[in-house]
């Protein structure tokens, strides 16, 4: 205890209400009638179901396979039959459905073959892999996959490993009892983390209102001869927030934009350490957790509960009083009323409080903000909640970000102290989820734009390639055609055409080799011309010689014009002159 503690600004001291559930030791909850195990119980990818309706599963059998690195596996909490893999309402404020595996227990509670390992013999990657496979996640409430936090930063040396046993939220006592009754296994679990991260020191922070837990942990640390330091921190909500505990124990502040490993510190919950030890040393995946049942109940107590147990069935063990009108999951500061009493217990469920109007009287209506600044004094992150509130309310999300809304941990201190009873945290949650949604939309739009532009680019390229191919084919065709035309013209020229006009198709053929595209056009034009000329004699057959002469004259002038326009470059445009127009040159040209 010869340690200099730091302080975080703000914080509040709500009535702790912890003693009620501390009188009795941990009890094991009986098997429920059925278990609804949500597949998505951690931050990150949703695990894929690997069982089907009708399958027989054993306790600890894999039912959901981790999807990606930041994702954790899900296991059958007991042996039994899979009834269905279907959508069920989640213990989430939205009250929406998600995919769950429903299991009917067979009552045997028969374990799958467990394989305990000596983790010292494993490589660090293998330990992490095992933790992922065992579904070990942060049990403090954030449910971040633990293996993802067990890699030290490559650039920053690991200074401190902080173990969070503060448990600052009122009513909750599950970590307290875990440390009192199973301290040895917690300390062994911390040992695993220590060996993976290699920190310079390990600090176990416990609020000073839990002297028994601290004593038990100290005894366990001494018994195992570990150099861990058990530190009692002042009781002040939210000292159990990871960032606050890190601040109190090490003096380091972790901003929202950085990971704590970047500052050489990492934080785990005591219950996480416990499950990690069970997973490695006993081969037991996370299928149960400690849950505090308290609030408006006859016998508040901590139970070891299987994941997936319906909350109403569980709460019945503690004997809820008649006026219970809802269940709060989590503590009174950060918890929420579950949308349905039958939703299952998940890995994030640390406490269930039976809600009643007497225990939590409804708040008087919200009043306007008077800018008293109480929220800013209470904020443990030194934010300005009244400013963030104002801009969230005005939906000016750019400004809320300027006031660092993403550093807000939604601890609820500001709402707790607000004399106008403004539900500030709700405004911040609204603003955050709105900003995230916009971010998603923006990313989707950017993606679509890139893909659209690429498609256009590709289409243009394909068109060009196609045109080139066609042109090549056309050039070959044109060369052939031109040769034929030349032959035909030569044959005609043998009659009356002057030799220079017969040279034109030959030029076409020469050109065709140089410029296939032009040649294709030229060939087409030559064909059209030939057709027209073939028809011409018929059209002009009935005309008088004078009229014919006139036509011939006009034709000759036009040709002369066009020939001078595109000399050489496209000689093909000058068509072979037909005998009809050039035949009678004896009459001088006249304009009539």
């Amino acid at each position: 205890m010869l340690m200099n503690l730091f302080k975080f600004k703000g914080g509040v001291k709500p009535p702790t209400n912890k003693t009620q559930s501390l009188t009795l030791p941990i009890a094991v909850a009986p098997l429920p009638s059925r278990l609804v195990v949500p597949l998505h119980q951690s931050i990150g990818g949703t695990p894929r179901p690997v069982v089907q309706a009708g399958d027989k599963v054993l306790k600890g059998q894999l039912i959901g396979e981790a999807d990606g690195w930041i994702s954790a596996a899900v296991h059958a909490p007991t042996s039994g039959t899979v009834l269905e893999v279907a959508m069920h309402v989640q213990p989430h404020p939205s009250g929406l459905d998600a995919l769950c595996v429903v299991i009917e227990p067979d009552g045997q509670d028969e374990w799958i073959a467990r394989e305990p390992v000596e983790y010292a013999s494993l490589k660090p990657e293998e330990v992490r892999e095992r933790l992922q496979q065992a579904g070990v996640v942060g049990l403090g409430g954030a449910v971040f996959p633990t293996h993802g936090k067990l890699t030290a930063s490559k650039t920053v040396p690991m200074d401190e490993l902080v173990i969070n046993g503060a448990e600052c939220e009122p009513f909750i006592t599950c970590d307290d009892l875990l440390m009192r009754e199973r301290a040895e296994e917690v300390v062994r679990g911390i040992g695993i983390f220590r060996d993976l991260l290699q920190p310079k020191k390990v600090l176990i922070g416990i609020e000073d209102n839990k002297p028994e837990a601290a004593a038990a942990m100290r005894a366990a640390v001494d018994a195992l001869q570990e150099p861990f330091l058990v530190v009692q921190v002042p009781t002040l909500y939210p000292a159990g927030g990871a960032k606050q505990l890190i601040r109190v124990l090490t003096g380091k502040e972790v901003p929202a934009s950085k990971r704590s490993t970047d500052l050489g510190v990492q934080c785990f919950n005591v219950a996480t350490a416990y499950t990690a030890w069970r997973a490695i040393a006993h081969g037991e995946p996370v299928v149960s957790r400690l849950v505090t049942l308290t609030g408006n109940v006859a016998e508040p107590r901590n139970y070891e509960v299987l994941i997936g147990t319906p909350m109403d069935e569980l709460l019945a063990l503690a004997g809820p009083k008649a006026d219970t009108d809802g269940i709060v999951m989590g503590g009174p500061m950060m918890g929420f009323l579950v949308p349905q009493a039958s939703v299952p217990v998940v890995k994030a469920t640390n406490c269930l409080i039976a809600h009643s109007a007497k225990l939590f009287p409804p708040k008087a209506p919200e009043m306007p903000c008077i800018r008293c600044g109480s929220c800013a004094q209470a904020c443990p992150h030194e934010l300005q909640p009244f400013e963030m509130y104002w801009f969230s309310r005005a939906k000016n999300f750019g400004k809320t970000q300027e006031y660092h809304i993403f550093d807000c941990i939604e601890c609820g201190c500001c709402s707790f102290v607000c004399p106008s009873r403004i539900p500030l945290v709700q405004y911040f949650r609204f603003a955050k989820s709105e900003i995230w949604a916009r971010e998603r939309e923006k990313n989707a739009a950017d993606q679509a734009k890139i893909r659209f532009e690429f498609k256009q680019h590709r289409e243009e390229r394909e068109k060009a390639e196609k045109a080139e191919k066609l042109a090549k084919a056309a050039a070959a065709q044109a060369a052939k055609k031109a040769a034929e035309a030349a032959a035909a013209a030569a044959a005609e020229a043998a009659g009356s055409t002057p030799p220079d006009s017969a040279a034109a198709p030959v030029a076409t053929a020469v050109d065709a080799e140089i410029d296939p595209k032009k040649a294709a056009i030229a060939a087409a034009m030559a064909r059209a011309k030939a057709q027209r000329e073939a028809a011409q004699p018929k059209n002009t057959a009935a005309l008088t010689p004078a009229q014919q002469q006139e036509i011939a004259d006009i034709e000759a002038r036009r040709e002369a014009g066009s020939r001078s326009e595109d000399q050489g470059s496209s000689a093909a445009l000058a068509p072979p002159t037909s005998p009809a127009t050039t035949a009678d040159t004896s009459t001088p040209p006249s304009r009539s």
Partner: protein
Amino acid sequence: MSHYLFILVGAVLVNNVVLVKILGLCPFMGVSKKLETAYGMGAATTFVLTMATGASYIIDHYLLMPFGLEYLRTLSFIVTIAAIVQLTEMVIAKTSPTLQQTLGIYLPLITTNCAVLGVPLLNVSNGYNFVDSLLFGAGSAIGFSLVLVLFAGIRERIEGAEVPVYFRGVAIAMVTAGLMALAFMGFAGLDKYQ
């Protein structure tokens, strides 16, 4: 020296173009919805107004007065201002795309800003010399920017306030501007100490 100080303080606070002389109200109402745009507009106006006062002084004294063409003042000032704004816009677009982004569409708007025409005309009627004119122009522009930024700050907050439905939007903005004008009356007489 104190003469210049009086001109400056008088232009910025006492005879503030917007709140006391009631000039340039269109951008004051139109460009004050966001603080960022208000900064941009303020900067653009400050630059253009200072330039315009200088240029119009030169035109007035060396082009119009020698030929006795004072009656063409308004016309020639407007043309000059429009040209300066256009020129400024082109130079900014070329040299600083980021500034162009911030100023955006507000720069061309200055062309039709009555404050920018009013201040050179006031210079003439006050009989200021060249330095006085520049100072008065700059002061007026700073005063304009000041109230624009203050007003934008207030309006950003009004967005979140529970304003009675029929007062929302421009109505409450007008009321706010009126209150600001009342506040600026407090500066009256500050420039009378000689």
